[in-house]
């Protein structure tokens, strides 16, 4: 099953790279990719320089970024759902993405953290994401046991605060160009993908996915709660914080690279759970791959749905994601046996 999904992802990436203003045959696309990766020409199929540039320099980074983003967001969704023991959690809803975008805004507009090196924007965004996830966890623990309502409300509140501060920074920075950049970027887009930035993001996402996959046993225990976990030999406290840091790192870099894209972390794990069950040993890799495939195709749709222009992916995903979210909330109270109120 995992191999099948890897195959589907590979095919999706290739296919998505053939589409665009100029249609390029799959064989040429494949040759260009192989040439870009290895410097060799397969099947003596020499592609022309412009075709190579279009595929390798323009389209492929974009498609790969879409895949990495989908992978990162769905896996972080799975992790956050395990941390808060609630299937309604995801980086966007819990305000973690807003924290990341505040961090990135501050870094871009005010140059905060410029001393952290080349990928400082991603790091500051991760810092913002981490602060918000910690804040949500603390807030929802105030006054008794955390429940889904408290979590969603704390997420919403912190998200609003982060949004306000971001707007404040943008408004008073008095920088028209910066303002435009931020606005477009908040809508979510893969258009500015470049290999240089992509390598860091992809590495972090891939390492994160592998790390979390190796933690499947503890993630399963998390869903049973702290008490049961202790009687099964694991104290979850430390792990929760570690997972929060790693997922904040992933969300930070993904938001920095692709902007705000919501609901992926909510819908993908949910759909995968319906098909493959709750066991994280399967749920985690399947969600990662399904999320990647989903965003590759969504991005392709965004590029081709309107003539001569493209729809920002964040807008598109929110348009289909929000109704799904409402559907899940309604379904929760209507039985289904999958999720109950605490």
């Amino acid at each position, binding site marked *: 099953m995992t191999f099948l999904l890897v195959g589907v992802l590979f095919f999706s990436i290739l296919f998505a790279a053939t589409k665009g203003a100029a249609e390029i045959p799959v064989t040429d696309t494949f040759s260009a990719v192989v040439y870009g990766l290895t410097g060799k020409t397969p099947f003596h199929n020499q592609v022309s320089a412009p075709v190579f540039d279009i595929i390798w320099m323009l389209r492929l980074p974009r498609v790969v970024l879409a895949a990495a983003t989908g992978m990162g967001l769905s896996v972080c969704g799975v992790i956050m759902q395990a941390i808060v023991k609630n299937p309604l959690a995801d980086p966007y809803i819990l305000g973690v993405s807003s924290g990341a975008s505040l961090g990135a805004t501050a870094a871009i507009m005010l140059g905060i953290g410029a001393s952290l090196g080349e990928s400082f924007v991603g790091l500051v965004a991760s810092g913002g994401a981490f602060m918000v996830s910690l804040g949500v966890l603390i807030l929802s623990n105030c006054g008794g046991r955390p429940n889904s309502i408290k979590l969603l409300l704390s997420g919403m509140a912190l998200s609003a605060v982060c949004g306000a501060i971001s707007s404040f920074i943008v408004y008073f920075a008095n920088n028209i160009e910066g303002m435009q950049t931020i606005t477009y970027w908040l809508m979510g887009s893969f258009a500015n993908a470049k290999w240089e930035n992509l390598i860091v993001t992809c590495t972090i996402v891939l390492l994160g996915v592998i790390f979390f996959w190796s933690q499947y046993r503890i993630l399963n225990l998390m869903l049973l709660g702290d008490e049961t976990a202790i009687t099964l*030999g694991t104290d979850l406290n430390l792990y929760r914080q570690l997972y929060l840091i790693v997922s904040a790192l992933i969300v930070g870099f993904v938001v920095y690279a692709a902007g705000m894209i919501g609901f992926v972390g909510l819908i993908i794990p949910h759909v995968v759970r319906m098909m493959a069950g709750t*066991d994280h040993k399967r749920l985690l890799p399947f969600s990662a791959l399904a999320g990647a495939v989903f965003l590759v195709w969504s991005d392709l749709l965004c590029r081709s749905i309107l003539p001569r222009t493209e729809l920002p992916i964040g807008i598109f995903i929110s348009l289909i994601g929000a109704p799904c979210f409402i559907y899940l909330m309604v379904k929760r109270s209507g039985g289904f046996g999958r999720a109950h109120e605490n």
Partner: protein
Amino acid sequence: MKIEASGLTFQVGDKIILAKVNALLEEGKFIGLIGPNGSGKSTFLKCIYRVIKPTMGAVYLDGKDIAGMPYKETAKRMAVVAQHNFYNFDFKVMDIVLMGRSPHKKMLETDTREDYEIAAESLRSVGMEDFADRHFLTLSGGEQQRVILARALTQKTECIIMDEPTNHLDIKYQLQIMDIVKSLNLPILAALHDLNMAVNYCDYLYALRNGEVVACGKPSEIITEAFLLNLFEVEAEILHGKNGQMVIAYHAGHFKKL
């Protein structure tokens, strides 16, 4: 296998929930904890299975203080069946039972054929072998509790701790769970609120009130009408059934008027 609680005290603020409780769980015995609501039964058990840390006193496993042991170590030696097993996510029955193997696993170790066999065997012994592929949340309360018991058995521990394991179950399932547990021949420590269950299944009872042990001994020795009136503030008479088992018949208020 011997569990010894020595001077266990638990305090929240000024409120004393457990006061210097001593108790001993030995080989091959079914030990019951009885007492009215709020008497500290659950708190006592939680101190033993390490979900809460006692304010004072200690729990010794074969003479070793459990406070210094890794959680994995205690999970390999005692399994817990608690009263609320409510999950927000729907696992398959087999997934849940297999989690009983986790104390025996290192970080990256995968489940082996042997683990599956142990899990299947545990499901068989609670009569749930046909439910392995079912979703946990679609099961009835009695079935869910048997699955949790199977998970405890999968831990392959030397003893089992139970906190009101038959709460909210139909009488058929109450008897079923207790019979299964009794047939295991493992040392069992169980908090029970149904006194008829306690006297018929336990070899030894500890009675708690306001966090203190007020009596301990064999059920036939300590359970008397005067004792029940004193501890639970109910009037009851003690009868004997056909097989010689004790039956506690409570006096309902409206009968007393006659």
